[in-house]
């Protein structure tokens, strides 16, 4: 391969009149170009990845002990998730618009008997009080995470995110973005799966 092309001024004597044999060296650049072109077109056409899924699903929650974020709810510590019953951990904030949009769905889950615990990100007590007053308060406990210590420790990259935690404190599922009405049965399924040890994924 890679025999250098003879100088154009000095062509080899034509041995015969048959068509020139296929020369890989000649075609390789075009083949490479076509391959790269296809790769780039594929990359450009594919919708961009906008969410970062947590790689921490399947691991036990890290140790944390957050102070209360609201006046009438306790803070949140890891121990609250070792009760033997699966729970939802909702990462939210009063300044987050989709968090208000998912509030009715969280309320429906709480009415269905699910315990929902919250982690409030970069929030002020008065803002949070106003948020809970206007959107309802489905939370059993709300921890105040001013530096996103817990959020980073569980691989959450934004608000809102909702985690299914099983009764031993292991993260079983991560839901990114607001909970739509159509997500509620799915989350109940995930909670049921988390209730049976070894069940689900």
């Amino acid at each position, binding site marked *: 391969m890679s025999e*250098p092309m003879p*100088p154009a001024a000095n062509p080899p004597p034509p041995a015969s009149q048959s068509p020139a044999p296929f020369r890989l060296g000649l075609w390789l650049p075009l083949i490479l170009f076509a391959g790269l072109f296809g790769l780039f077109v594929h990359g450009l056409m594919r919708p961009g990845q906008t969410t970062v899924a947590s*790689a921490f699903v399947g691991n036990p929650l890290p140790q944390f002990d957050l102070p209360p974020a609201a006046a009438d709810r306790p803070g949140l510590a890891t121990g609250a998730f070792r009760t033997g019953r699966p729970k939802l951990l909702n990462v939210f904030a009063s300044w987050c618009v989709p968090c208000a949009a998912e509030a009715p769905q969280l309320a429906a889950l709480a009415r269905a008997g699910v315990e929902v615990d919250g982690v409030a990100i*970069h929030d002020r007590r008065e803002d949070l009080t106003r948020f809970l007053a206007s959107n309802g308060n489905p939370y059993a406990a709300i921890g105040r995470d001013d*530096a996103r210590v817990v959020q*980073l420790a569980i691989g959450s990259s*934004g608000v809102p995110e909702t985690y299914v935690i099983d009764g031993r404190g292991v993260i079983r599922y991560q839901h990114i973005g607001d909970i739509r009405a159509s997500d509620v049965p799915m989350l109940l399924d995930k909670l049921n799966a988390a209730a049976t040890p070894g069940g689900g994924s």
Partner: protein
Amino acid sequence: MIRLLAAALLGMLALVSPVLAQESVAPAPYAYRQLADPEQEARAKALMITLRCVMCQSQSIADSDAPIAGDMRSEVRQRIARGEDPEHIRQWLIARYGDFVSYTPQVKPITWPLFAAPVVILLLAALLLRGRFARTPPAGEGDRA
């Protein structure tokens, strides 16, 4: 016209107010503050420019002004200050956000072409050059480059 522009600007401000509210809470302790020890800060900085902000995604956490990038800087700086190894911090983040969070590619089965490519290209170049230089040009004419 100007009044119209001002009205539009006010409308936009109203839309971004939730974001402003987020800024009104004090940032994490080391989001915008360097470590006192310059040697430690240099180590933190070297690590932070190779970590991707999970919110803005095309900037390192050293470059990004997203609130979560500030919190990630604070986390990195505090861990460095506690004497944690920078690579250990990188692995801690990769365990939570996947390889995506690190701009420095990790040596893994899926990344071997990345590390093999320079060697392959160098070998190919050596072969080509050998072909060029081994041939002695015919005396007198040709090969004027």
